[in-house]
């Protein structure tokens, strides 16, 4: 009874959108970016264009067959690339775990122990991964709707406090901020997870990634503008500007929508954690022999925990840069692997 088939690639877009956009609402706890909304819009556009360009080139050059061979990990070169994939996704998973724990401590007056929070998040991600990617994409669709509804509510509840004069304009935004815009460009490790799926990525999959990245950039730019409309120049000094916006906003007698937003953002963070754990598990599967298939998930969890310890010890800004370059390196590794295959043939 499969008369009306839904293309699974189409389902990827909400998952990717949720996993990427949550970084805009729950930001890593670093020194505030100090960039204005105007610069943030350019940064988002620059990021989106860069990521889309890399993906476009990658999917044009790399065939589905080489990705399949890469996933299988039968060749030594594939194993080397998968090792890089596993390292980047595990480090990104660890970073996400640390961010979630810090965010939870930030919003909760009586926080749970860090280890317990991390254990709960990892267990939820473990359950998600054990249910499989199909389940995760469906759940991401539901969470995406909640996320979008939450964003709309945030906008409506903060609309009363928005002042157009709070926006700061600069005639030459690139003169001082060009370096900052380019350095704030990120290559999220979540993209790597999609290379590990058993899907024909070069067709609709690539289009969906592009769509999700564009939507994410719009969301990021919108969030930055909304934050500056309400908070003015102070928006750039906030650790979590959207949480501040949620805390300030309200509709009539309803003043504590922030609790609702935090709930939705936690769901999105859990989804992101699950996706990264899935990516690590899939990369580890290619590295381990067939008979050790059951050990892949525990190994992925151990790697993520190790990544979390690293991220907790190293400054978050450094982690961000390492992750971006690591993702680019992993893309490059996959590209090289594809070329090697072509030469061998």
């Amino acid at each position, binding site marked *: *009874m499969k*008369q*009306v*088939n839904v293309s699974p690639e189409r389902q990827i877009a909400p998952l990717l959108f949720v996993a990427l956009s949550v970084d805009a609402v729950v930001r890593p706890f670093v020194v505030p970016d100090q960039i204005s909304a105007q610069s943030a819009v350019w940064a988002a556009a620059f990021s989106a264009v860069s990521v889309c360009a890399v993906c476009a080139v990658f999917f044009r050059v790399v065939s589905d067959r080489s990705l399949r061979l890469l996933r299988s990990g039968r060749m030594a070169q594939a194993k080397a690339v998968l090792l890089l994939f596993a390292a980047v996704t595990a480090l990104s998973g660890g970073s996400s775990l640390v961010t979630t724990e810090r965010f939870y401590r930030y919003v909760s007056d009586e926080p749970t122990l860090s280890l317990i929070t991390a254990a*709960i998040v990892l267990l*939820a991600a473990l359950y998600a991964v054990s249910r499989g990617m199909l389940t995760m994409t469906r759940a991401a669709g539901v969470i995406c709707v909640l996320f979008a509804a939450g964003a709309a509510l945030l906008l409506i509840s903060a609309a009363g406090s928005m002042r157009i004069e709070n926006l700061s304009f600069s005639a030459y935004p690139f003169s001082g901020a060009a370096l900052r815009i380019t350095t704030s460009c990120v290559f999220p490790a979540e993209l790597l997870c999609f290379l590990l799926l058993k*899907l024909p990525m070069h067709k609709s999959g690539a289009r969906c990634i592009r769509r999700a990245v564009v939507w994410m950039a719009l969301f990021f730019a919108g969030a930055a503008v909304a934050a500056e409309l309400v908070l003015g120049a102070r928006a750039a000094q906030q650790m979590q500007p959207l949480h501040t916006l949620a805390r300030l906003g309200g509709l009539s007698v309803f003043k504590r929508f922030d609790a609702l937003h935090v709930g939705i953002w936690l769901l999105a963070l*859990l989804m992101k954690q699950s996706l990264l754990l899935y990516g690590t598990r899939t990369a580890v599967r290619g590295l381990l022999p067939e008979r050790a298939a059951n050990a892949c998930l525990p190994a992925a969890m151990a790697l993520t925990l190790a990544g979390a310890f690293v991220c907790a010890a190293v400054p978050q800004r450094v982690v961000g840069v390492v992750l971006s370059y690591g993702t680019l390196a992993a893309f490059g590794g996959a590209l090289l692997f594809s070329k090697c295959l072509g030469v061998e043939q």
Partner: protein
Amino acid sequence: MAEQLTKSLLENKIRIKEMFGDCVDFYTKDVTLCGCRCCICMFEGLSSIERLWIMMLDILSQPHELRREPEDLFDYLMRRTAIPLESRSCVCFDDVRTQLTAGTSVILIDGVAQAVVLSTQSMQFRSVSEPSGEGNVRGSREGFTELLRVNLSLVRRLIRTGDLVVETMTAGERTQTELAMLYHRQLAPKALVETIRRKLRTAQLPFVFDTGYLAPFLQSKRFSFFQSVGYTERSDTAAAKICEGKIIVMANGSPFAMIVPYFFTENFASMDDYSEKAYFASLVRLFKYTAFFLAVLLQGVFVSVATFTPELLPDTMLYKIAAGEQATPLPLFLEALLVTFLLEIVREAGLRLPRPIGHSVSLVAALIVGDAAVNAGLLSTPVVIAAALSAICTFVVPSLYEPITVLRSLFVLAGGIFGPIGIAALLFCMVLNLCGMDSFGVPYLSPVAPPSRIVWNDGIVRANWRKLAAENFSVSDLPSETWGDD
């Protein structure tokens, strides 16, 4: 291989007597029909001798109806008389047992290795009445009864086309319960029909007294709080589901018909929705969804907020909760669990006892025990209010009672021990659990996830009949996914 009937009347009689032992309700009588020695077999209470007399014996006892050969009598009965015999005769003892226990009369003829069957059923059964659990404001008042044939006739009366297919089979090693599978020849996907048929035939059960016994054999082995099969007591609901291309499974002895496949959104729909204006039906559905989430989350969120993030509560309410909590010996989440436990006990007591006593128990529990527990300082009023609200919301979606009850307790535990992160993680797992379920190849959360435009026609809300009629929905329109990854 089934044991065949022989030509010897005596041998057949001995074998049937062996089969049923010394059952007091098993009736046999030797008679001579048209000059041939015969034996009438039937079960008292299931079959009526008066009816047999009127239908057959009276005609055959006429002196001019003499037949010399038994084969000639059999042939005469089966083909040349107006006696309304069953079209199929019994050729083995299994057939004889099946026919006798179905309430028909079996007539053995000496010298013939077959037996004729006459429908003389006269069994007692509950009359067709309004279903107790699926009340409706408008629409049919008919509910299924325990007798399968009556239930089949109720559905047949509503779908008067040649496309309604009824297949029967038996299940239950010790009970040999008759099952019926009803579906629409054109709309039900053939693969689905084949799958259900195979699963029902291969279900190894010692006995079957309700369609619920078969549910685990039809569903996925993977654990879930929710069921991918549904139940109805209403003939119009069953007919509507058949017209959507679904399959109805009925079991003799149970007034509950099973609906397969069944989706999450169907728990929030009722037959009334389709008789009312679309906007009102949609509003009622939205209320039901809200009630479901309140039933599952309210207590857990309340416990979590009051324990971990009390600043979210308005000051006045916070003082009252704090005052209430100081007066009680248990932590908030244990109080909430205790109230849930008490509510379940009261419900069980009210359900199992005779109805008048059940009402008294509910009254005593609600007024005396509840009030006394609050006055004695065992429970605080806010916890009781949250529990009562949750309980009322649960009754809005009765088909989800079981998952709601379990999930509510889990959310109380998660919220009480781990706070908001516990609630969020459990909610995430619940969403995954719902999203991971498939109902015979179609996602259980369909048409919500994966999203489909049907969600605006007859999903979370309902469109008006003009639009619904134009779309002409069937189960095949729901999206399904294939993915080689998992």
